[in-house]
């Protein structure tokens, strides 16, 4: 018995089962219905773009880490999530090479240059998307009708001529993953149930948009269901790395996203502000964390 040395380690001696890998895979699982819906509506394009994005994201992460002679941590699943989210945020008719470029930029410029997982100030998938929009504006704003390859002029957000039911089920033109509110909500509920999703950000985000739409006399349900708002609020604003860690901070983050989105949607020259609203609030995250420190137990309590 004396031979085998005992293990000396600091408490606590037990750990929760959840790991970063599991969290990432949960997000992937939650995205499956969304991807399935996208494939149902847009067919091969959905498979093509999302698969390419995933492969390039994971590949460029591995490549970058290999060049840096760091352990290849692609199995943590974060690049997988980034690639999947980027792929799902692309318009169905986008040329493959643009998806490759966007995915590469998302991982390299959006994440790895800052030191990899956990260190990036901005949401990598959105960085990739924003760069694509700024570079290939017309391709990134060319939509096709579901079930066909027919190019249509505008998304419902711009044209404003579809029913709630169509918006809810997703039989409208738009980015691959954004059209079906049903699939997104399904994924969101699953994430929430698994404890991966903090309710404050999506609630703050969607709530703000709803209230402001109402105040400015817009069709509230329409504003919520159209465009990529729902997709972003559920899957992208909630990216833990780039959102605040304090409870109050997460409310502020969500509300801030909503404000910026409304500002851009109603007064900006872009039809859609999701990408920018989240990226902008990402920039505010360190400041929010700093200025919303929770009150420590017993702080400010006077002796009775």
């Amino acid at each position: 018995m004396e031979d085998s040395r005992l293990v000396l380690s600091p408490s606590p001696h037990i750990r929760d089962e959840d790991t970063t890998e599991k969290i990432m895979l949960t997000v992937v699982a939650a995205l499956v219905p969304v991807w399935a819906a996208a494939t149902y509506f847009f067919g091969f394009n959905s498979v093509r773009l999302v698969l390419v994005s995933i492969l390039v994201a994971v590949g460029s992460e591995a490549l970058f880490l290999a060049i840096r002679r760091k352990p290849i941590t692609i199995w943590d699943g974060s690049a997988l999530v980034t690639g999947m989210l980027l792929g799902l945020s692309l318009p169905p008719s986008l040329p493959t090479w643009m998806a490759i470029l966007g995915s590469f930029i998302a991982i390299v410029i959006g994440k790895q240059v800052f030191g990899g997982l956990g260190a990036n100030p901005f949401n990598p998938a959105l960085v990739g998307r924003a760069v694509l929009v700024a570079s290939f504006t017309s391709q990134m704003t060319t939509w096709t009708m579901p079930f066909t390859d027919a190019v249509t002029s505008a998304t419902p957000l711009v044209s404003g001529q579809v029913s709630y039911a169509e918006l809810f089920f997703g039989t409208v033109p738009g980015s691959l993953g954004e059209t079906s509110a049903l699939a997104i909500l399904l994924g969101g509920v699953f994430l929430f149930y698994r404890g991966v999703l903090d309710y404050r950000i999506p609630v703050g985000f969607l709530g703000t948009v709803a209230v402001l739409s109402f105040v400015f006399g817009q069709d509230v349900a329409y504003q919520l269901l159209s465009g990529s708002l729902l997709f972003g609020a559920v899957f992208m604003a909630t990216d833990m790395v780039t959102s605040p860690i304090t409870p109050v901070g997460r409310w502020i983050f969500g509300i801030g996203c909503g404000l910026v989105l409304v500002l851009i949607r109603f007064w900006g020259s872009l039809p859609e502000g999701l990408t920018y609203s989240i990226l902008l609030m990402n920039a505010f995250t360190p400041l929010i964390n700093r200025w919303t420190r929770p009150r420590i137990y017993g702080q400010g309590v006077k002796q009775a």
Partner: protein
Amino acid sequence: MNESAKMIVVLTIIAMISGLLLAQVYHLTYDRIQLGKAQALRGSILAALPGAVDFRVIEAHPVGGLEDDRSTLRSKPGSDSDPLLLFQGLDENGDPVGFAYVCEGVGYGGIIKIMVGVNHTSELISGVAILEHVETPNIGSLIENESFRNQFVGKGTADPIALGQDIDRITGATVSSRAVTEAVNRDLSNALQAYKEAITNE
């Protein structure tokens, strides 16, 4: 000489020399700069008015002034009293070909200044030239392309020019396209009226 006095004297002298020098530079380059500006203006006027070889300036006083422009973020000072400059294009014989005026629209990056030429007789647009813009290169800047600008030729006051119907958008640059279309639309009838008044008064 004490230090303070020296400081004052030296600085003053340097300032004076500099002032003098700059005055010389200014005068030396003045003519050329004006000439360059005039040529640029002339170029765009002639581009907007095919057939014209020369132009003259007409001061017009449009009724009620031109519409306010939200782009400039300020009301134009006394738009009633300020004259509107119209450029009358003349052919080889000195006969009027038409007139051109400048209008502004708010694009994606900022203000777009447009020269619009109108045919003397048909009172239809004879050409459009972009004077200034700050649109995104390769996106909004495509409004400079002839294919876009030429779409306006032949349009008139009769019915408003509509983006998407009369004018094809530039893909991905709806904002810029709309800015140009709306600007041309907005001032066209006013300018035409002012032009007519101006030449009848002459």
